């Protein structure tokens, strides 16, 4: 019908046929909203144009000439040009697949044409979670993507894509934010994110070459759209409490336990004080976020400005964090052929960190110690002759006063991160586009650490008198540190896209990418005796200027990378898909023989549902099979050049003056190259039951053949650990993602999504003799808990196995032959599983009923182990958990769950190892939208969320989700000095004008 009207109009306007002129018009969807980016092609004049952001176009063509209009997601159509402004309405394609576009390296791709495995999350997936760092928000929402969260204010969660394939080199994926490669996105305001694409398989990743081995996340931030100015405000306030706490013994139970341990009656079992240290160091956490954005578009320009202020008061006393972000994204269409894109992001964060070891101190300090004595002095673990807390005498344990520890740890950190990019897109001719992009990143960081030395001295012994404080000691010390760096990248590529004979769709991308990670300069200066008020924390205010000293000045190594890439994508009859990529990469990190590497990949796809035999199937709406292979690299290792160690750490006094020393701290391996990972993968995507059920299945087999590990030479060599190729790691797994979407009626629609990922990680080979039996996971009392071994996953716990109790209630252990011994030898240790889960899953569901929206997100992991490090880190006379104090071995209770009280360093055993499996409700959100609040506001939504309201866990500690240092061979999966998982309740509002 519409075509008929257009044809009719064309006939009327026939006389104007004769000469070329500017034809103007607008391309609209069925709702009358302009479609940006539609392509107009004049068949006779051989000219072309794109619609702008509002769907407007200008094209040089003759009246009456046929214009072909095409746009992804819409049915193509042809109309005759008219001299009066045209209004062209495009019909949405029935095949909804066509609309979906995923972001791939250096371009985008129609989802149905893509051969790789990419998980895409939308803006609403991210913003709903109310997180500082967007990575946290995707937990449980994407198959094959594991997020190990952390609630420490300002920290970054770990993101593991299809298992860990490295030990020594960097483990984090590459983030590409609007074309700028970066390793951390804590500076990105989650509200600014338009899409979050996780590239998972090697055939998608190989275009990023030697930075791709840990996966790539491509983040695209929002752009202005529409033809009017939109102002949007989103804000929330919330409270945060620990999701789970641990009940500790009271002071009388502690006294009894310690007396039994010492076989003494030093501690009275009728104590004066009963301090709950955990309560003393924690408070109700609060957080809020206020976000304001202004966006819009006109014919030549679109723009977005956004401001966000995030503020958090942590549950640990005094631990505060806030972040202010600003973003401006503009696109300028200078001509039909040339477009300039520009982004600018500034993030200013300020924090007052506190030592997380206070959690361990609070766990360990005895409850019989008061926070403060009646005379106002800090409580210390001192026991008097009457068995009660006393102000003088010997210390009965080595744990400090956690409240004083927090009070006297005063630190302020400030960080500014500026990121900006400038891009240019030039259409050389219709099918060929040139893109050039420069990204810049500047970071500056400052720290002020104030240590009140005299107060600490007074706190350590309640009998001390300030008058006796040594005049040569500082009253306080101030360390001020700063660092900065500047990184840039420069990408240039050509994209050729043409469809031949209507069936051969060819896209070729060729380009280069250069990147520099600039030197990080660090400067630390120390002085003493500055005023106590933090506004005077500068060394000019020191009353002892001669003590001002530079303790560190370092200019870090610069790192340069360069890569050349080409990608060929081919689609035959929209059914048979092929992608091939090759990247050649050079890195300054390696010696001249090992600088360059080649990273090829290919992917194949077959859209089965387009074949004749399925074309009309009602059961199967869409089915695509895909598979691929690729090779990836990881170049993130320390610079591979032999250097000398020198400076103050190697200095010595001769004749009263200090002279600097020089030696070699570790010998490097000159043959070191990058880690190479090869992955074969296959999968399928489908839609069935009237498109209501959609899903994907994926399988992969990934092998890193020359894993780099910091190997420590034999003790007798006397030099430190050095990176070397050490072995092979394999990750094999499968992923299932399903989603059901349905509308019951016009008012009610609902969805249920579920995903499950299974990954088997294995150190399949250790060929470097020095890497064999590398240990890790030391818990600070001389005990280690993990060991690297062939045939075991990374992060495997390697412990003694408890057999039972001896006649005194002390543990006995199994030796390697299964016999029982009280003094096991090193060779009696066994493997007990890894801190890495073997599976993880998420279930997400929700409904929208009229103006009400409701959603639930859940997440779970299994197959992993966690070590109760805070419980195992005993020296003597630390507090115990309530459950231990009431159930330990005695001669009349020989089957107790816990051994007889003891006061020595316990050896690492499976007594401290527990299941790390948990299932948690990550988010429940209820929202209500008032559609037309007033004449100016277009909508108002108010919402309430419960974040982490429930957890089901087996672990007896605080939280089984223990990212810690993020190192599976280090402290990951060990609860020691760890921040707690929090449960938060928020209310918020979103209003659009």
């Amino acid at each position, binding site marked *: 019908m519409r075509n008929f009207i257009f044809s009719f109009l064309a006939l009327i306007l026939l006389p104007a046929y004769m000469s070329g002129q500017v034809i103007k018009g607008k391309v609209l969807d069925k709702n009358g909203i302009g479609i940006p980016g539609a392509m107009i092609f004049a068949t006779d004049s051989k000219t072309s144009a794109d619609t702008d952001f509002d769907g407007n176009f200008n094209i040089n063509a003759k009246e009456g000439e046929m214009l072909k209009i095409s746009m992804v997601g819409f049915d193509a159509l042809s109309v005759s040009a008219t001299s009066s402004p045209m209004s062209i309405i495009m019909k949405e394609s029935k095949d909804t697949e066509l609309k979906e576009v995923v972001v791939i390296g250096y371009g985008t791709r129609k989802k149905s044409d893509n051969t790789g495995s990419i998980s895409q999350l939308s803006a609403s997936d991210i913003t709903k979670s109310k997180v500082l760092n967007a990575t946290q928000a995707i937990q449980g929402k994407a198959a094959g993507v594991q997020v190990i969260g952390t609630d420490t204010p300002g920290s970054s969660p770990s993101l593991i894509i299809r298992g860990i394939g490295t030990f020594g080199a960097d483990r984090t994926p590459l983030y590409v934010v609007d074309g700028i490669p970066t390793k951390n996105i804590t500076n990105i305001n989650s509200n600014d994110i338009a899409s979050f694409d996780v590239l998972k398989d090697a055939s998608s990743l190989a275009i990023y070459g030697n930075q791709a081995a840990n996966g790539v996340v491509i983040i695209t931030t929002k752009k202005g759209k529409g033809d009017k100015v939109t102002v949007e405000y989103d804000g929330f306030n919330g409270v945060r409490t620990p999701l789970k706490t641990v009940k500790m013994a009271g002071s009388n139970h502690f006294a009894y336990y310690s007396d039994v*341990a010492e076989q003494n009656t030093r501690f009275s079992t009728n104590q004066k004080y009963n301090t709950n240290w955990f309560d003393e160091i924690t408070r109700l956490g609060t957080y809020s976020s206020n976000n304001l954005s202004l966006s819009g578009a006109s014919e030549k320009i679109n723009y977005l400005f956004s401001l966000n202020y995030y503020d958090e008061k942590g549950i640990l006393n005094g631990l505060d964090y806030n972040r202010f972000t600003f973003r401006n994204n503009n696109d300028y269409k200078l001509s039909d052929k*040339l477009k300039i894109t520009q982004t600018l992001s500034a993030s200013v964060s300020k924090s007052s960190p506190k030592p997380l070891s206070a959690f361990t101190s609070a766990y360990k300090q005895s409850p019989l110690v008061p926070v403060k004595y009646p005379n106002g002095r800090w409580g210390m673990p001192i026991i008097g002759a009457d068995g009660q807390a006393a102000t*003088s*005498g*010997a210390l*009965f*344990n*080595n744990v400090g006063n956690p409240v004083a520890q927090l009070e006297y740890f005063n630190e302020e950190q400030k960080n500014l991160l500026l990121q900006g990019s400038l891009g*240019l897109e030039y259409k050389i001719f219709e099918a060929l586009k040139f893109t*050039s992009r420069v990204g810049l990143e500047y970071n500056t960081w400052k720290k002020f650490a104030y240590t009140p030395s005299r107060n600490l001295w007074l706190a350590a*012994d309640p009998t001390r008198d300030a008058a006796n404080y*040594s005049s*040569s*000691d500082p009253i306080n010390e101030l360390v001020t540190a700063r660092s900065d760096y500047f990184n840039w990248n*420069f990408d*240039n590529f050509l994209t050729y896209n043409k469809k031949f004979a209507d069936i051969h769709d060819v896209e070729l991308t060729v380009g*280069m990418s*250069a990147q520099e990670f600039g030197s990080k300069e660090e400067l630390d200066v120390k002085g003493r005796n500055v005023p106590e008020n933090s506004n005077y924390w500068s060394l000019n205010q020191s009353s002892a200027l*001669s003590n001002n000293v530079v303790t560190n000045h*370092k200019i*870090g*190594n*610069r790192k*340069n*990378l*360069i890569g050349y890439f080409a990608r060929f994508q081919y689609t035959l009859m929209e059914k048979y898909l092929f992608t091939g990529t090759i990247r050649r990469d050079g890195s*300054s990190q390696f010696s*001249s023989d090992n600088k360059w590497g080649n990273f090829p990949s290919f992917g194949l796809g077959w859209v089965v549902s387009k074949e004749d035999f399925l074309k009309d199937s009602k059961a199967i709406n869409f089915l695509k099979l895909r598979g691929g292979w690729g090779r990836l690299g990881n170049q993130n290792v320390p*610079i591979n*050049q*032999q*250097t*000398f*160690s*020198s400076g*103050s750490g*190697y*200095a*010595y*006094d*001769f*004749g009263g*003056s200090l*002279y600097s*020393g*020089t*030696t*070699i701290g570790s010998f490097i391996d000159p043959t070191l190259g990058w880690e190479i990972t090869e992955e074969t993968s296959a999968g399928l995507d489908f839609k069935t039951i009237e498109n209501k059920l959609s899903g994907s299945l994926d399988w992969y087999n990934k092998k890193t053949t020359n894993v780099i590990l910091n190997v420590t030479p*034999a*003790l*007798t*060599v*006397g030099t430190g650990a050095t990176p070397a190729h050490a072995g092979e790691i394999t990750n094999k797994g499968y992923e299932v993602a399903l989603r059901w979407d349905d509308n019951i009626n016009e008012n009610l629609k609902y969805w249920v999504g579920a995903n499950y990922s299974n990954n088997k990680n294995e150190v399949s080979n250790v060929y470097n003799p*020095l890497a064999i039996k590398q240990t890790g996971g030391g818990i600070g009392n*001389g005990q280690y808990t993990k060991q690297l071994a062939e045939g075991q996953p990374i992060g495997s716990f390697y412990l003694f196995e408890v057999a039972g109790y001896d006649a005194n209630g002390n543990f006995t252990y199994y030796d390697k032959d299964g016999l029982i011994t009280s003094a096991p030898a*090193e060779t009696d240790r066994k493997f007990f599983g890894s801190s890495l889960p073997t599976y993880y899953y998420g279930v997400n569901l929700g409904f929208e009923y009229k103006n009400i929206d409701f959603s639930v997100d859940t997440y779970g992991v299994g197959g992993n182990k966690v070590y109760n490090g805070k419980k195992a880190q005993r020296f*003597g006379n630390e507090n115990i958990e309530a459950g231990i104090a009431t159930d330990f071995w005695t001669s009349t209770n020989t089957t107790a769950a816990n051994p007889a009280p003891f*006061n*020595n*360093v316990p050896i690492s055993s499976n007594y401290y190892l527990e299941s790390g499996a948990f299932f948690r409700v990550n988010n429940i959100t209820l929202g209500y939208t008032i559609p037309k609040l007033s004449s100016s506001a277009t909508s108002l939504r108010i919402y309430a969320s419960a974040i982490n309201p429930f957890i089901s866990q087996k672990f007896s500690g605080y939280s089984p989700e223990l990212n810690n240092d993020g190192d599976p061979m280090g402290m990951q999966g060990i609860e020691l000095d760890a921040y707690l998982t929090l449960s938060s309740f928020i209310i918020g509002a979103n209003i659009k004008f």
Partner: protein
Amino acid sequence: MKKIFIPITLVTIALFSNSCSNDYIDVAPTESITEADLLTVYNNNDGAKSFVTAIYSKSLDWNMSSFSWNGLSSMTSDDADKGSDPGDSGADKDKCDALTLDATSLSVQDVFEANYQGISRVNIALLYLPKLDKADAALKTRLVGEAKFLRALMYFNLVRCYGGVPIVDHVPVPSSAADTDMTLTKKTKEEVYAFIQTDLLAAIDALPEKSGYAVSDLGRATKGAAHALLAKVYLYQKNWQGVKDQTAAITGYNLVPNYATIWREAGEDSVESIFEIRGYGGNPSQGIEGYMVSQGARGTSGWGWGFNTPTAGLANSYEVGDLRRDATIVFAGETMWDGRIVSPLVANPRYNEKAYVSNTAETFNGDWETTKNIRVLRYAEVLLMQAEAANESGTGDVTGPLNKVRNRAGLANTTATGQVGLRDAIRAERRHELAFEHDRWFDLVRSGQAKAAMAADGKTFVEGKHEVFPLPQKFITQADGKSIQNPGYN
């Protein structure tokens, strides 16, 4: 448009061209000096010295001379207890005290690892010094002598602790099987002693006397120090003639009049001092990590962790009037020489005064690294070695040197007579003169008194086992059969 494209095209072409992209990824390091720049940076006298300075510096490390070393050399003996609170094991110091150390004990690994780290620095210095052709030749000769003296000292501590150990005499090449064998195969005790002697003889040839050094070089190894160490090495092997020859060659030293000042700042570099590990309390401080604080009094009025405390047995063993008792032991409730009042409520009845640093009367820059020097070799020990060698060999003056030491301590000449009587007198004198100077345990073992002394101290010394400590399990694992554990340690 062309304005934009010309520069972009030029840069792109530049980055595409192979030679330029190779240059682009050829980055000069800024963080530390590369080995390739050895001759441009270090080829001068200061550069040559710095390689040897780093060896001396190793002796300040926590794992080398501090907590673990006290654990092995002192707490094991009848002079010292673990100290601190009964509940505080100090990682494994309870095991040191009880003689129940095993191969995984931290102290056992620390001392072993630290000495080999020092030996590595010696070998690195010996590798690079000959390449520095612009450094003064005489200086390089002396520096090689200093390095070898320090290597000998480290092997001496290793052989005393562990018996036979691998002899690593050059920087091992990782790909060399022979070098790997060198680092993993333990040699006999005798081979280690022979190696030490070779190093010391070379050091004696290369080093000047104390008087031959400039004031700014005070603290470097001297010819006298090398003679004294070699004498001690011979003493442990009962080579009495060697002891006599070496001690006779030591000149220019004497006893200081007041024993109590020896371990104070005022007593540093005295006429009695032969070799010291030098803590620097200036700014930045570069002292012996934790030496003072780990041994400081614990609890009320205290200034440290309270480890390595003198036993009642030691305190009661001094003769009446022996000035060394008060100079060696801090007693709970006493007022110290600098006026500090030690509360009677401190955690332990006695503390090691030789580790004490006054924060009022001495240079003090924090308690972790202070001005404290460890007296490694001093003239009083030379006199006692002379007396012992004379008594054991049956020739030479026994009582002369012995009485010099006694008289300085406020005691009359010895009344002991006969070889056996004098042997006991010399042993008692060594105990009191050198208490807490990291020798008691080794003296007990070498003289065969260990079993009886341990029994008197309430511990069990197993002959055939406790003469040496276990080799660290980590090393045994790394050796993978090339070295076996010392007898008696699983």
